[in-house]
């Protein structure tokens, strides 16, 4: 009986540091990405029958995007809605799994969503990492939009959307820095919590929280100067489609910031074994190693959506001081700043 799940290695070699090898593997990576996604469906169908606690770990739909920073490991409460009848074909199966999984996910998030703003609770690593990722966002956005970083509200006049905002941990500081923030999440409870907490401070009560998905926003035709999606893409079934939606939400000349976890052995050891099983920082099953993206893959799928990654940084945790720092080491957590070409 294994104490923790073995990493599901894709058939292709994974993380490579040499750039020439990366160039050769450029097309191989795209193919790898697609085949990885195809593999995922089949693998998880079989897993669902064998290992119950994996059932709720991944959402499949390209339409619905789960909330960010979710911890879907609490036992699901029974859902009242009936499952739709099974239809032929994998798309139909996906949708069926989507709705049943989604209700599970939503119920779980509802149960723990009260702890979003408890900085000692299950979201503690996120609160600890928040100032560090805000420092990166601040410096890259100020440089890109030519704003003076030495003022208290450098983002004055910028419209930013936080896709997968959860309880608003990122949205509130962005609003305090002067931006006009729209927070988007698929879980209604999260939006309610975020709304209530933001109303406590006049500067953050202007945040517009909406319970919707990135795709729906694209359908509404909304666009923003900067699109943030931190710690979301590793929970999404179709990262390529998700990136296309993010690109559509960005104005030409705007910025996209994505953060996620690298698919490397170190990340497996740190983010899954250490964080979930040894230190119990995150509930088990929060992350699937096979759904992590390497920096090269992220750059590739963003490029296919006409978004150019300009800067990337890693987060490292100093175990002695417990502080998160920005560094060049992207082997575990990393954040990428990208821009959309201006028109003309």
């Amino acid at each position, binding site marked *: 009986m294994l104490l923790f799940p073995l990493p599901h290695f894709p058939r292709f070699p994974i993380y490579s540091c040499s750039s020439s090898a990366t160039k050769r593997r450029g097309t191989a990576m795209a193919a790898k990405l697609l085949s990885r996604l195809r593999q995922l469906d089949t693998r998880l169908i079989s897993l669902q029958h064998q290992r119950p606690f994996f059932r709720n770990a991944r959402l499949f739909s390209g339409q619905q995007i789960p909330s960010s920073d979710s911890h879907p490991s609490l036992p699901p409460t029974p859902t009242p809605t009936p499952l739709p009848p099974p239809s032929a074909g994998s798309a139909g199966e996906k949708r069926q799994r989507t709705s049943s999984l989604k209700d599970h996910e939503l119920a779980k998030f*509802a149960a723990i*969503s*009260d702890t979003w*703003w*408890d*900085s000692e609770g299950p979201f503690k690593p996120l*609160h*600890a990492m*928040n*100032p560090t990722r*805000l*420092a990166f966002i*601040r410096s890259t956005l100020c440089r890109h939009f030519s704003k003076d*970083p*030495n*003022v*208290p509200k450098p983002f004055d006049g910028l419209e930013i959307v936080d896709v997968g905002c959860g309880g608003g941990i990122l949205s*509130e*500081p*962005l*609003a*305090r*820095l002067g931006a006009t923030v729209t927070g988007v999440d698929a879980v209604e*409870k999260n939006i*309610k*919590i975020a709304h*209530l*907490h933001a*109303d*406590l*401070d006049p500067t953050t009560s202007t945040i517009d929280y909406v319970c919707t998905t990135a795709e729906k926003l694209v359908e509404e035709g909304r666009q923003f100067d900067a699109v943030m999606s931190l710690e979301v893409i590793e929970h999404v079934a179709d990262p390529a489609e998700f990136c296309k939606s993010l690109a559509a939400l960005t104005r030409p000349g705007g910025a996209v910031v994505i953060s996620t976890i690298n698919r490397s052995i170190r990340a497996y050891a740190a983010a899954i074994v250490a964080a979930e099983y040894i230190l119990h920082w995150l509930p088990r099953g929060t992350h699937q190693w096979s759904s992590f993206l390497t920096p090269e893959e992220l750059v590739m799928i963003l490029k296919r959506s006409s978004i150019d990654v300009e800067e990337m940084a890693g987060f490292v945790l100093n175990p002695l001081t417990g502080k998160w720092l920005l560094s060049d080491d992207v082997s575990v957590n990393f954040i990428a700043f990208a821009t959309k070409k201006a028109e003309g």
Partner: protein
Amino acid sequence: MNRLVVRRTLYSNHHQPKCPWKRGFCSGGEAAAAAPASSASSGQLNHIINQKDGSFAGDDQPYDLAIVGGGMVGMALACSLATKPLTKHLKVAIIDSNPALANKLSIKREDPPDPRVSTVTPATISYFQDAGAWQYVQQHRHAFFDKMQVWDYTGLGYTTYDARDVYKDVLGCVVENRVLHSSLLSRIEDTDVQKTIYPSRLASMIRYPSSSVKADDNTREASYIKAGLVKLEMSDGSSLYTKLVVGADGAKSQVRNLAGFKTTGWNYSQNAIICTVEHSVGNHTAWQRFLPGGPIALLPIGDNFSNIVWTMSPKQASDLTVMNEDEFVKAVNQAMDNGYGPHPKSNFSNGSNKFSFLGGNLTMSTNESFEVPPKVVKLASKRAAFPLSLMHANDYVAKRIVLIGDAAHAVHPLAGQGVNLGFGDAFTLSRIIGEGVAVGTDIGEVSLLRKYEAERKPANIAMMAVLDGFQKIYSVDFGPLNVLRAAAFHAANYISPLKRGIISYASGEQRLPIFP
């Protein structure tokens, strides 16, 4: 789901000085079930809320910071925040009943010197220079000193420190407290920051918790608006709301009592007499002699004046305070010269000594001979005595509350470090608040304040330990211990790396005594 009940209890200083402050809870819970709870408490809620819809009236907008205590350290924090681009937009309220804050008293150069002085270390001087307040200090009486001589009554050894040992110009500067205070006030007035002075004393403090909101409560209870804020009520009836309360109100801190911070400490059975004296010649050296009852320090304050800080038992202190001025001057001269014991023998070495193997160039001051301090001619101010004690708050921060200066720690004056620790606290807190504003943090959050505590607590505790150690070692008159102390004097004088380390620690360049 917790049912929270509003309990608005007023704690005043007279009744329960040590009672931990109670949180005022907001009536929350399910929307339907909130009706009975809120009706019971709505009477109380209504006079917290100023307007029907619960928002703040124009004058009552919540402050970002409330500094309780407008002394040197509180003003240093306000000045530092006011002069940095990232923090000058913060709305600051200062609560102090001292009329000198509201109507600034002007200090003239020819005024007689006030006996309350402080020695500011070079580190503090550079903080003041960064804030732009040092220029105002230079317009009043102040005295740099670059030499210091320390010896004791046994006559077995002495140490001379010189700023040139560490390739600097000064060891420190002695400035009157009121000069420091008015310089900070002048600097704040230069900048056009939003600050309001509440000329009264703090009476009570209520904190509203912010994380007890429930998701399915759709009605916006007006009390939620107060959540995440602290309400301060003053003794004259006014009140204000603020995101962060800074306790800078001195050793008997009201904020610390109301917030329930526990402290550790003990009384030294010593009182300190302070007064200003005059010489016939200028004095540019700091002198400190350890007597059996405690150290006596003679610090130059400029214009032939010096300040005396004499520590002794309470009985001796009261005797010396009441005796007539001539007797007192004689006692002081004796204490600095050959009362209680002989002069130490001067050291004569010709460039090298048996400790030069420890490396480093020999410091210039090793060759200095023993000097007798200048004679005191007359007393230039009243004598004042106050008791000495050690105090340290176990925590400096709680949610939305932080302590700086003497409110957090009180030390023995034997090394002139007390207010320098306080200034270190103030300028560090202002830097941390700036870092928090840079990434959009709510400045009252505990995680941000803990950064301040993690930086200042080890440094403060280390300094307190060193000073307490000195105080204890020098309060015992025991033969072998005297010889040990004399050996320590010699060691400090001859072992150059040690001397340099002592100087740089005492001048604030080095944060911790052992690991820099």
